[in-house]
């Protein structure tokens, strides 16, 4: 069975500072990895994904994430946080080998303080 762990319920960062939101995963085969963001009263929005290839993937709004197979991690990063980045962030994984559904972590609330 596949699973995702987001060890931090809340991350606080000052505007302009770099941010990291952590994610580790477990799958039996190769992973497809995703990050989604949820703004208040809005639906989940796709940010970025890792399918294959370069371990560093770049996504929307200046976010990027690095796939680390040995550490089974896919941490979300941004070099300089904005107040408007404040939202709920979800990491998700599915097994690349079959038509399995996307499994989500419990989410991390990011708060960027001006």
């Amino acid at each position, binding site marked *: 069975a596949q699973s995702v762990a987001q060890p931090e319920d809340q991350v606080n960062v000052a505007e302009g500072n770099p941010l990291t939101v952590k994610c580790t995963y477990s799958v039996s085969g190769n992973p497809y990895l*995703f990050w*989604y963001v949820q703004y208040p009263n*809005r639906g989940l929005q*796709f940010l970025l994904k890792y399918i294959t290839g370069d371990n560093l993937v770049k996504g929307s709004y200046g976010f990027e994430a690095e796939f680390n197979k040995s550490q089974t991690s896919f941490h979300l990063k941004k070099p300089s946080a904005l107040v408007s980045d404040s939202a709920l962030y979800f990491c998700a994984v599915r097994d690349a080998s079959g*038509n399995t*559904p996307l499994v989500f*972590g419990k*989410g991390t609330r990011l708060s960027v303080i001006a």
Partner: protein
Amino acid sequence: GAGVSQTPSNKVTEKGKYVELRCDPISGHTALYWYRQSLGQGPEFLIYFQGTGAADDSGLPNDRFFAVRPEGSVSTLKIQRTERGDSAVYLCASSLNSGSRAGELFFGEGSRLTVL
């Protein structure tokens, strides 16, 4: 429409009643998913359709929950004999299963169900 549409956006019902939640996916998306999100939790998988058939219904919590997608487009999630524990936001998503955007789920804004 351009995105995934879910109706109603809010539904308040009494314990024991029957509820239907509707999802209209993005045109051309063959895959459709239902998830449930409780407060402080991530989305929890319920059921996945590929075309008209349920490819994976392993997430449905019990036989009070049922979903259909008769023409391979609109889907309805049906909940019988609702219980207070069914209160949650029910999310629908659709996706393409091929091309550069394969695997990306496009979510609706959800239907918030409150069972009194």
